[in-house]
């Protein structure tokens, strides 16, 4: 067996030193750095709780150890857009999410022949419809809720959306 540090260059070692210094100057208690096959922890006091509290491997759950599966669609929808956590996608500051008030099929236009209710750039008022959600032939209009301009459309026409899924984002007018 060759050097354990084969995977670590001199530069890496130096950088680790820098990290330690940087952290030292900072007011933080610990730093954890994880790469593919590399993990470093520096800190004071107790060791870093490894996210155990949040979602621990469950005795009952073979797969619980993996990252929590978001309830976001995996097949039919652009998952990121549908993920509950805004963090799922870099979101521009100050945009307002318009979310699905019920799960169902999203329609971006009143009928196949018409134009979409809104497109990026459309001006909207709180009452303007941004789309319809159909559940068992029952259509529910989704309204913008704010006055502003449509900045992003996050779902496609005729896509199945979940409850709470972000449909579009609006830049409120100042």
């Amino acid at each position, binding site marked *: 067996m060759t050097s354990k540090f084969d995977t670590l260059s001199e530069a890496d070692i130096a950088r680790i030193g820098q990290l330690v210094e940087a952290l030292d100057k900072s007011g933080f208690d610990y730093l954890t750095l994880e790469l593919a096959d590399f993990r470093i922890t520096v800190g004071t006091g107790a060791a870093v709780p490894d996210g155990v509290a949040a979602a621990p491997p*469950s*005795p*009952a759950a073979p797969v*619980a150890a993996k990252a929590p599966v978001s309830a976001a669609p995996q097949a039919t929808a652009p998952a990121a857009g549908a993920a*509950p956590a805004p963090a799922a996608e870099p979101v521009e500051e100050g945009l307002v999410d318009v979310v699905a008030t019920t799960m*169902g099929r999203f329609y971006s236009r009143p009928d196949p022949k018409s134009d979409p209710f809104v497109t990026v750039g459309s001006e909207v008022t709180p009452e303007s419809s941004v789309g319809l959600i159909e559940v068992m032939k029952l259509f529910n209009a989704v309204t913008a809720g704010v006055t502003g301009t449509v900045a992003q459309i996050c779902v496609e026409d005729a896509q199945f959306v*979940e409850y709470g*899924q972000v449909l579009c984002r609006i830049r409120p007018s100042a």
Partner: protein
Amino acid sequence: MTIRRVFIANRGEIAVRIIRACQGLGIESVLAVSEADRDSLGARIADRAVCVGPASATESYLIAKNMVAAAVGTDCDALHPGYGFLAESPDLAQLCADNGVTFVGPSPEQIRRMGNKIEARRLAEEFDIPTLPGSTRVGSYEEASAVVAETGLPVMIKAAAGGGGKGMRIVTGTGQLRDEFARAASEAGAAFGDSTLYVEKFIANARHVEVQVLADSHGNVIHLGERDCSLQRRHQKMVEEAPAPNLPEALRDKIREAAVRLASRFGYRNAGTVEFILDQDEGRFYFLEMNTRIQVEHPVTEMITGIDLVEEQFRVAAGKTLRFAQDDIVFRGHAIECRVNAEMPEEGFRPSPGRISVWQPPQAPYIRLDSHCHEGYLVPMFYDSMIAKLIVYGTDRAEAIDRMTRAIDRFHIEGPATTLAFQKRLICEPAFRDGTMNTGLVDRMLAGNREGKQP
């Protein structure tokens, strides 16, 4: 017709149980989750989880059209309702049928008819299955005594409107009937604003015995033995076992045969349970109702038969012929289940939701745990309080009881309070140990024995 992807319209341990059956059969699973269940174990192990609404069940798990819309929207060809929620909703089954989704259960018609107690009772009588004498609504003393003349004493008088023992009276002597009737009527009126009463034969020494049946869509029906669920608190089952102890073999056969007859004359399909009340003194049994779904306590039947009931549900729902004839079923040993609820026995069993800080279940070859819980899991306040089913198998009933007792001792849970210690006391009760318990045991213990305060 084969099932490729199934939508699971349920949550908690049964959702996990169903997903694992799917994995075992190579069926994809899509799980309905409310906002409160987004990160549940079920959501983690399902191939996909779909948020169908907010935490409140009435806005999520209880909306049939949303469930079916979600099943269709996620391209599922079947739907499994589990138990509770919409499991016995004819509408859900009908919506599935209308939308070309295979409902893993009986037909909407069968659910509807068995769901109607009067109709179910009529069916049982039609198939020569004994039903409880009386059980009719009475508005006056005269009507009441007419019923008694037919049923004989003792009888139970209770408010037609409500349950929970309110306005409940046991009448043992003819002389008391008039007074008891009057008191019960006024109590009922006061409690429910409706003084209509219900009179039925009272069985002092009763046991709850139910038979698991399994039927395919080709007219084949078998039973997988019976379960005894006599340990109930206010009609809530706490401990179940299979087979039923202390049952004369001739009587056991009669009960099993009656259940199969009911299911087959009725043309029933999929898994179902026929519930009976057993009069231990007279050695007679009476039809109570039929549950047209998989039941919470199905694992005890699985433990003594070696058959995976949920897998078989999928097979018969897909139109396959039963893989077993009645003679293929080998019953062996004894199994007991405790429903572990997050409740405080010392405070009238009020729910005790919250974060589970320690979760260390016992493990051994003949211990099975069906649960969706784990350390760090937050037991939500929105749903029922069952957090696990602890099931043990023994070569005989005594071994099963010992194993359960030790298993409970080894089950460490911190965070929510649980019913485990209380259930340990139950299975250690002499009446349970020697198999002579009846459906009154739990409530008698709670009423009489105040050590109930420190279970």
